[in-house]
């Protein structure tokens, strides 16, 4: 897979997806300022858009995604409906999960965004099961699971990687290393500077990529997806990126060196890619503006939709626990 295979059309799609994600999350930031409008902990992937967009764009529709607490980008890149996504984030009845997921547990099984867990490190064992089902059913689908650098310390991640390695499951582990786990640096929580190097111990390829370069992520994604799809077994991608907004919207980043923030701001995955597309003549200024405006309009509409939607009523609070509830 060489860079040349990225045709202009795809470039524009990658760019649009990142812009949409950014605008969508910026809207959440705004709304989070107003008390009561955004229930729960709003956790954004601002600065990490290239990982979500690049990786998800490398998938086929049949492929399964397992996400974590920093999930919005994964869902948007997958083409999830903005309105029902925003409404869900507001925990509204019209949300994609009827207001029962909230911002942290979004799932869109129709789009094969099968599950989201906010228990750090829980995604990989869930993904193991999904990938096993694909292998068992002899489909050509693969499963991708996103997790953080912090999650890599959880025992469950190890168990999943080991078993995926033994059974040669079509499972792509994507570690979004955003330089933080809460207020802890990788060197405080991870005994190796390069998580991808652990792959060897699980008999799978481990690769690292600049997570702020959407095409690099896409290209490596295509390569590793191909690897998994071919039946060779699991693979691990570590994407190096940065969490620009702190852990969540309540985080004021008092522990972050402003210089570090600045230096990563200069590596913004969207600004950088915009310049590249402008320079390469793939897009012009007018098109860039149109893309921004379109995204803003869609996001505004989604926010309005969410705002206008009611919270779920008392009649649904007890439902959906079981498919087959006790008859009594």
């Amino acid at each position, binding site marked *: 897979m060489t860079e040349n295979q990225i045709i202009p059309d795809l470039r524009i799609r990658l760019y649009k997806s990142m812009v949409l994600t950014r605008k969508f999350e910026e809207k959440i930031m705004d709304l989070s300022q107003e008390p009561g409008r955004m229930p729960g902990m709003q956790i954004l992937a601002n600065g990490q858009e290239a990982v979500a967009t690049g990786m998800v764009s490398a998938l086929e529709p049949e492929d399964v995604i397992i996400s974590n607490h920093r999930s919005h980008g994964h869902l948007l890149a997958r083409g999830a409906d903005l309105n029902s996504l925003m409404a869900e984030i507001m925990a509204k009845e019209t949300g994609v999960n009827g207001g029962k997921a909230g911002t942290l547990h979004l799932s869109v099984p129709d789009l094969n965004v099968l599950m989201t*867990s906010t228990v750090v490190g829980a995604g990989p064992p869930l993904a193991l*099961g999904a990938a096993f*089902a694909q292998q068992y059913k002899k489909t050509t689908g693969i499963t991708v699971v996103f997790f953080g650098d912090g999650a890599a310390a959880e025992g469950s991640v190890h168990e999943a990687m080991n078993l995926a390695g033994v059974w040669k499951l079509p499972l792509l582990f994507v570690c979004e290393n955003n330089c933080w786990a809460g207020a802890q640096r990788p060197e405080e929580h991870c005994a190796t500077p390069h998580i991808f190097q652990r792959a060897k111990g699980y008999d799978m390829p481990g690769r690292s990529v600049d997570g702020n370069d959407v095409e690099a992520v896409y290209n490596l994604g295509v390569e590793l997806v191909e690897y998994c799809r071919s039946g060779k077994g699991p693979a691990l991608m570590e994407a190096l990126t940065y969490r620009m907004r702190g852990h969540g919207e309540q985080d004021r980043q008092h522990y972050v060196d402003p210089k570090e923030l600045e230096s990563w701001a200069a590596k913004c995955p969207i600004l950088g890619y915009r310049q590249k597309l402008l320079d390469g003549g793939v897009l012009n200024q007018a098109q860039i503006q149109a893309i921004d405006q379109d995204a803003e309009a869609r996001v505004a509409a989604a926010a309005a939709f969410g705002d206008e939607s009611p919270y779920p009523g008392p009649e649904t609070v007890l439902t959906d626990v079981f498919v087959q509830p006790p008859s009594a």
Partner: protein
Amino acid sequence: MSEKTFGQALNEALTIAMEIDKNVFIAGEGVGVSIHQDPNTATHGLLEKFGRRRVKDTPVSEAAIAGLALGASCMGLRPVVEIMFFPFITLASDMLVNHAGKLRYMSGGKSSFPLTVRVRAGLGFGAGSQHSQNLESWIAHSPGLKIVWPATPEDAKGLLLSAIFDPDPVIVVEDMMLNQMPGDVPTGDVRTPLGKARLVSPGTDCTLVAYGTALYTVMEALKPLGEQGISCEVIDLRSLVPLDKACILDSVRKTGRLVVVHEANRFCGFGAELAAMVADEAFDALKGPVKRVGAPQIPVPTAPPHENIFKPGPEEVVTAVREAMGK
């Protein structure tokens, strides 16, 4: 009908389930190749019958085993996984409690998890508390999980089959001490419905509720109780969640007394729920204190005489019933 041991009945349930639904697979530590060669083991011979694709020996990784079941069930398979001994369910408890029990609710009903976890329970083999600890009340306290506990070969087969084809996550507790016990088992795909208790023997003075091995402790107590002129109604609970409330309440409304018996620690055990339920919903019918027979608040001991003290015996049942009768 044919005579089978409890373990063979479990084995038959797994065999039938795998035969009638190609989406059923089994996984766990040694479910394929086992250190035992005992036909009374639930998974005995399944590897030979169904092959390595559907009978999966796993690493010693309880969280991964549970995660495997979750992910696969969400994709439409019907996994049946094994946790070798009940105390090891702690290692799978995040997957079961925070995921199997919650993800459907949080999906707004979009996802379902038709998985079965077989967990082997029981005391009496001297292995100590890291191999023996009954944690059914943990599971029962966790929303979104069902849990059943067969006491007879017939129910071993019937409940396991129901669990496998139930659309929700079900934990099936297999009392290891019952594995060799013979009994009549109906032929074919005959299922015991979840949520239905079984009236084992009718009586008028006191209701005795038990499940698993404890049922036989209760049965042993019936004779001395009868000799003392006390007539007990015995209920085999079979299913803890869903719970057959009506069966228990009706019985207590008739007898006016309740004694619950289980092998788990009594403190905060499942018996507490039944006692509390009755002390609320059948209070007016109660003629005496609601009693619970269970283990003292210590880890399962190792030395045989200590293990014996730990395990509730028929004498304790007799004493409890007498106390419930005000004697």
